[in-house]
């Protein structure tokens, strides 16, 4: 096959390389996961394992894998030609004593991920399908990659990899140049390039083989076992997998170093490779919140910062107010007072970021659970022919999406007894199976924003805009469709029909004016109409309205009392199946609590903006929108 970039030629990434050597040296290690942003040689690193392992081959589990090829299924050929019913093994079985490679495992279907992981852990494949019952032994080295920007792995999955290492960009100039030169040389003449490293590869291969032989004799002193357990407890690692992973890795490290006893340093390094992805205590970084300029690594000088603020209408300039003065600078030149914006004038507020960590601590663990769930994308079974083919079933009335291979497999055992009419296989209607397809849904999130004068009070809008921006950022990564609707004066206006182009949304958000009365009823009705109407969204889509308001609706469409009308409308809308999230922007004391009542009527999830900074808002909403099964 193709010449692979040689392992010793990969620059830096020492931990990842160590982890790979461990995985090869100790086959008890369950899986290695390489995490890194795009273009950090994740795939290259794993491909280079083949040359190190000697007789082992890399079997790729591609994104297009179907169930029958993964687990095994009846073999059509033998059924037809020999009349025998036998199992044709899947990749999991064929990968026995080999290396199984899953690139971008976070993009692979969840069921497939679980099949792979459970085969890796239990060392066997249990098949109960298509009239087959089988139990096959298999033992492989599992290697997978993922780019976290493309979505998280389902909760619990990372824990099932013994080793997890992160690849980072190399920041050192000289190293980067060397890397670039090597890569160019390799592309021009792969064989010549690899030949230069052949000696190193051979010696590494020997090191691994020696380590494999030594491994059964490597022991961990009792005190060190305790050390491992303490380490895991301290880091808040749940379950026993972490302890075992550290122990296995430490043994591999000792064996690679030609020692029969595990020493403290082995455990330190092993913990780094095996526990980083399992730690529960440390507050997770919040990647979704835009960094503030002060902490930005490029280190903009302060004068640059002020320049940005004054030019706030430049395309895409994002300003992050840190003090009231700066906020003032961002407001429109109309010079509205900070206390309250008069109801009949409009003003445009800048986008604020409300990134604060205070008040966050009490619920840290709760937030963390939400976060881990948040990456799960909603998948739906779709009725049209789009989507990924995941499985098959007995067909419904319209047999228009036939799973031919599955149908052939169903028919295969009966071929001996059927008339063939010149064909090799005879199919009956009862053999037919239909494809079950699954699609990752694009969610539609409509931001319904109260643009009335009361929102302008104390620059509430700055905070609100910051919150929306955080949510938009999140939607950008999840490729959701977002819309923006604002109600103020007499009307609700759809500023942005649901779209995937979040850039446009940010532009509109920036220029969103505040002022006038609060036609809340109209806003809710219009939002619900938009989302229930066909065309804007396919039926499978998951629809959410995020309503940001203080709940003080004061415009009625008829003669009714506005509050009564609001309550009635809300109850009606609650029955449409659209999900509402109410973010209460009311501030100060005493509270009137209109938004809370509204949330009750809408059967919505309720948050107060006070308790949520933008980071947490994005997080909580995401937990709700994405976190549920």
């Amino acid at each position, binding site marked *: *096959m*193709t010449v692979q970039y040689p392992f010793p030629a990969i620059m830096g990434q020492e931990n990842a390389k160590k982890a790979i050597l461990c995985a090869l040296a100790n086959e008890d290690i369950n899986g290695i996961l390489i995490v*890194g*942003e*795009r*273009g*950090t040689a994740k795939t290259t690193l794993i*491909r280079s394992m083949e040359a190190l392992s000697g007789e082992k081959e890399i079997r*790729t589990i*591609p*994104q*297009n*894998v*179907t169930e*029958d*090829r*993964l687990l095994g*299924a009846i073999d*059509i*050929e033998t059924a*037809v*030609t020999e009349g025998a019913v036998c199992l044709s093994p899947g*990749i999991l079985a064929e990968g026995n004593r080999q290396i199984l490679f899953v*690139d*971008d495992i976070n*993009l692979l279907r969840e069921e497939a991920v679980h099949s792979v992981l459970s085969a890796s852990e239990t060392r066997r494949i249990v098949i109960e399908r298509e009239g087959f019952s089988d139990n096959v032994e298999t033992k492989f080295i599992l290697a997978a990659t993922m*780019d976290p*920007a*493309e979505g998280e792995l389902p909760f619990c999955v990372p824990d099932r990899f013994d080793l997890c290492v992160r690849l980072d*960009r190399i920041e050192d*100039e000289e190293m*980067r*140049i060397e*890397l*670039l030169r090597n*890569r*160019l040389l390799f*592309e021009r003449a792969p064989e010549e390039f690899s030949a230069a490293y052949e000696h190193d590869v051979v010696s590494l291969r020997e090191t691994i083989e020696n380590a494999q032989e030594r491994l059964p004799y490597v022991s961990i002193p009792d005190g060190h076992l305790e050390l491992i357990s303490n380490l895991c407890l301290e880091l808040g690692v749940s379950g026993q997998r972490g302890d075992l992973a550290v122990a296995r890795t430490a043994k591999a490290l000792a064996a690679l170093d030609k020692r029969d006893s595990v020493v403290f340093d082995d455990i330190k390094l092993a913990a780094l490779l095996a526990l980083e992805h399992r730690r529960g205590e440390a507050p997770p970084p919040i990647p979704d919140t*835009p960094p503030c300029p002060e902490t930005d*690594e*490029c280190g903009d000088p302060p004068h640059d910062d002020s320049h940005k603020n004054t030019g706030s209408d430049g395309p895409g*300039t*994002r300003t992050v107010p840190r003090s009231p003065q700066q906020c003032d600078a961002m407001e429109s030149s109309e010079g509205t007072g900070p206390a309250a914006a008069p109801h009949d004038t409009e003003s445009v507020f800048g986008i604020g970021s409300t990134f604060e960590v205070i008040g966050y601590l009490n619920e840290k663990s709760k937030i963390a659970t939400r976060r881990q769930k948040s990456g799960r994308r909603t998948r739906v079974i779709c009725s049209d022919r*789009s*989507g990924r*083919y995941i499985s098959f079933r007995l067909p419904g009335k319209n047999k228009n999406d036939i799973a*031919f*291979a599955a149908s*052939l*497999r169903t028919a295969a055992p009966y071929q001996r007894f059927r008339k063939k009419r010149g*064909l*090799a296989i005879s199919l009956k209607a009862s053999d037919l199976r239909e494809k079950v397809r699954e699609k990752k849904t694009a969610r539609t999130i409509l931001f319904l924003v109260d643009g009335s004068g009361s929102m302008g009070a104390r620059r509430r809008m700055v905070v609100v805009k910051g919150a929306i921006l955080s949510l*938009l*950022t999140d939607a950008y990564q999840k*490729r959701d469709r977002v819309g923006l609707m604002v109600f103020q004066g007499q009307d609700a206006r759809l500023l942005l029909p649901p779209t*995937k*182009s*979040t*850039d446009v949304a*940010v532009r509109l958000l920036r220029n969103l004016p505040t002022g006038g009365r609060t036609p809340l009823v109209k806003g809710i009705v219009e939002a619900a109409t938009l989302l229930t109407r066909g065309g804007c969204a396919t039926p499978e889509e998951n629809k959410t309205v995020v309503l940001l308001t203080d709940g003080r609706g004061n415009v009625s469409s008829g003669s009714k009392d506005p509050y009564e009308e609001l309550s009635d409308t809300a109850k009606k809308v609650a029955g449409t199946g659209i999900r509402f999230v109410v973010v209460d922007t009311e501030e100060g004391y005493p509270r009137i609590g209109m938004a809370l009542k509204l949330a009750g009527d809408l059967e919505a999830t309720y948050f107060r903006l006070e308790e949520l900074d933008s980071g947490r808002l994005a997080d909580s909403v995401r937990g709700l929108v994405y976190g549920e099964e």
Partner: protein
Amino acid sequence: MTDEMPVYPFSAIVGQEDMKDALLANIVYPSIGGVLIRGEKGTAKSTAVRAVADLLPRRRVVGGCAFQCDFLDAKNLCTSCRERIAQGETLEPVAAKMRVVELPLSATEDRVVGTLDIEHAITKGRKKFEPGVLAIANGNILYVDEVNLLDDHIVDLLLDAAAMGTNYVEREGISYSHPSRFMLVGTMNPEEGDLRPQLLDRFGLAVDVEGEKDAGRRAEIIKRRLAFERDPAGFCRNYDAQQEEIRQRIERARTLVAKLEPDERLLRAAVRISLALGVDGHRADLTLVKGAAAFAALAGRSSVEEMDIVTAARLSLPHRMRRRPFEESRMEFEQIRSVIAESYACP
């Protein structure tokens, strides 16, 4: 595929120099990794991509291979070719023309990666692989119009194949692999939605095209278009000489690129730019170097000069600069220029 209907000649396209340069650079140096063309409707995006077909060089492929395995790349063959070699057969080269293979948005998963040949299974009772678009695209240009609207799971398949240069198929009882190296060309209208960052990074170069602003040139575009519609064959004949000239330019450039040694200054400039911009991963510097080499070669030079890097930077960096959504790039293009100048000042 271009035999039946004349395609509007590449050399007759008015303006849009960046787009034309980016396409030519990729023909000269295929591992640059394709072009993403962003712009509004009616800016000759699709015309240019289709016109490229007429300029593509011939290549030597394995005779009788459904996947057009590269004859010169004996290490990267499809399952069938490997079997043929194993059976003692000697593979013979044949000349093939590179072509533009289109991936329609409506394409289904099995048509993209290939699947079990149902007809063969029913009539012969044997499993046989039926190649998909990724097979046909091998060695050719894979063109996706409105690439930002492509279904997510199809994008995953493309990324998978692009990352490894091989299409591994494990579907419907079929286990097969074949080379799938293609030059990915996508067009999109940014107003209709963003592209996934991972897919964005797979495009070596990106160009933003705008409608022609100059009235005289606009008139010229219409004049040529009408002339083409009136008499396509005659119109194309008028451009024969110019087309041939471009073909020769490409041929010369390919020879030059193969011999071109990237010097220290070029590498340093590329790395410094990437580091200063904080772009993701290491693909940016690689593309920058390759792009610069291709532009130098297209200009008929055997060494890379400052201006080549500037051009390459302009086409290879903007789509990688935005590390986070909505974040403005940290560096203006002027700064990139000064980094390049600095690296070149001290030889």
